[in-house]
């Protein structure tokens, strides 16, 4: 056995060019499997992260209130309070389509949302200055607001300077009671995470001249209960609307799941394509091994004349094919790892070769060597020593 390994390495070394070309197929195959799978994985975790920052624990509810059938904010609050085992927080969400002004400065892209005091917790933001919107502000429709870091620095220069200043929202004067901490450390821009104004939803309802609230945001206590929580909301809404076209319940975690399964499918597809190149490499190994057997017919004849049994010759050639494929596999892993890091760095992803991809591609390459090396090896083993000795 050990002898066969030595022989195999000797034979590979004495045919460097041919061995290298054979291995090249496997090197490229293994490297491409690793690069593709690792990059897709890196992209997947990048996507997952950015989705998570949107709040995977959120369930968004959109209802279409009719004059005959409608759900009020009080109904929703009642439902929420009955189900605190499922839900952490809840807020109505009223978008106000208006611009934000301070003096002559206008912020046209800033989104103004009417929310409850729990929205700060839902977003998991902290305040840099001042206080949050309070329950009493909502009840008494106080014209107060919490603004994002970007709005504060654009209109007032800093959060400190913004505090207790007046902000004109749709013609009404709102007092700034709080400024949120900066969320996006890299860039702040129009429409970014730091560009927002929150006001009590009661004020927003009044400003939008629409008595009904159509959007709510829930957060769930347990991510694994996401579908149960969604169903609870749907059941509650169905009781009122008797028509599931009139409301829409969207769990962010479910969207993440479907995104993940989509990426997994893409990953498997790309891996499959790379796998085909491994298969082609295997055919290359078989071809070279067949050539090698033909070339070495005389050697096989001599070995058999001197007493080598079939099994010994078979073993010699199978091991030679396997060693060659394994060497190609190792080189492919090195190349694939380096290329993954390099491409990852270029694409701005933190891509590292996944152990799974390495393990699978390496074992596949060895298996290919064994599988495609076997037929030629069998041919070698069953050569007749007399014919083999006669060949030149």
């Amino acid at each position, binding site marked *: 056995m050990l*002898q066969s390994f030595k022989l195999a390495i*000797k*034979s590979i070394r*004495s045919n460097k060019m041919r061995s290298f070309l054979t291995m090249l197929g496997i090197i490229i195959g293994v490297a491409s499997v690793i690069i593709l799978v690792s990059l897709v994985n890196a992209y997947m975790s990048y996507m997952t992260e950015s989705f998570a920052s949107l709040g995977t624990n959120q369930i968004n509810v959109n209802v279409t209130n009719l004059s005959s059938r409608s759900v009020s904010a009080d109904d929703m609050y009642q439902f929420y309070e009955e189900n605190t085992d499922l839900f952490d927080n809840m807020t109505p969400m009223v978008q106000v389509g208006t611009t934000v002004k301070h003096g002559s400065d206008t912020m046209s892209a800033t989104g103004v949302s009417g929310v409850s005091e729990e929205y700060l917790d839902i977003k998991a933001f902290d305040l840099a200055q001042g206080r949050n919107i309070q329950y009493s502000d909502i009840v008494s429709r106080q014209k107060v607001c919490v603004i994002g870091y970007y709005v504060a620095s654009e209109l007032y220069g800093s959060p400190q300077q913004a505090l207790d200043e007046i902000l004109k929202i749709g013609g009404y004067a709102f007092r700034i009671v709080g400024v949120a901490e900066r969320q996006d450390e890299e860039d702040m821009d129009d429409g970014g995470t730091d560009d927002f104004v929150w006001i009590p939803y009661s004020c927003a309802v009044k400003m939008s001249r629409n008595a009904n609230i159509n959007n709510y945001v829930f957060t769930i206590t347990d991510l694994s209960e996401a579908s149960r929580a969604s169903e609870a909301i749907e059941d509650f809404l169905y009781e009122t609307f008797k028509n599931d076209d009139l409301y829409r319940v969207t769990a962010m975690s479910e969207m993440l799941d479907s995104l993940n399964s989509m990426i997994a499918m893409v990953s498997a597809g790309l891996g499959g394509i790379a796998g085909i190149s491994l298969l082609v490499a295997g055919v290359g190994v078989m071809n070279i091994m067949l050539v090698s057997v033909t070339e070495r017919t*005389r*050697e096989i*004849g*001599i*070995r*058999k*004349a*001197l*007493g*080598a*049994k*079939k*099994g*010994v010759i078979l073993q010699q050639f199978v091991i030679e094919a396997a060693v060659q494929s394994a060497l190609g596999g190792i080189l492919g892993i090195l190349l694939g790892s380096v290329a993954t890091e390099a491409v990852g760095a270029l694409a701005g992803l933190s891509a590292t070769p996944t152990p799974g991809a390495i393990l699978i591609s390496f074992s596949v390459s060895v298996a290919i060597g064994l599988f495609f090396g076997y037929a030629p090896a069998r041919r070698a083993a069953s050569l007749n*020593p*007399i014919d083999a*000795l006669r060949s030149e």
Partner: protein
Amino acid sequence: MAEPLIELRHIYKIYKMGDEEVRANDDISLSVERGEFVAIVGKSGSGKSTLMNIIGALDVATSGEYILGGEDVGEMSDDQLAEIRNKMIGFVFQQYNLLPKLDLLENVELPLLYAGVSAAERKERALEALRRVGLEEKWKNLPNQLSGGQQQRVSIARALAGSPSLILADEPTGALDSRTSREVLDFFKKLNEEGNTIIIITHDNSIALEARRVVRIHDGKINFDGDVKDYAAIL
């Protein structure tokens, strides 16, 4: 009387060439005692190579019985034949048949390797065999760094390494000039005097005359079998 080393009884080897039957060996019976030095002589196409393949357990006869060292070779499988070749026979070929990528020591070790001898003992016995042919100092060389005569001596060392019962040489001087041929033949004589059984296959009567017994094959049949002196007389 001890049983002969080689006992061939009514050996036939028949090849089918299309519809025609070719009797390469046609009822050959032959026995060789231990310690003999036999030349099997015949023209090309006479069937001597077929006979050599059968004696060397490289091939089995179509019919007939072949007992080598008390064992019936006729019924053996490929692997059993490989084992009997390994144990009983040292081959010396016209083209030396050394493996070009192995050094001399590794070449000589081959039969021992297939016999399952341990690495240390292999090296010792292979070096001893190389010493007997006077090439122990060149053990690290590759075959193509040697002259033809030297390569043939290496192949004799390889044949000796496994301490076989029979040394079977197929035209051992066919590729050598007359001076090195002389050396090789003298070496075979010496080996025979030391007690080794030797069979040389040749087409050349002058080489056959170096043996002690001559068997002549013609058209697949033995048409002379006797002492070398008697053979010299009929030439």
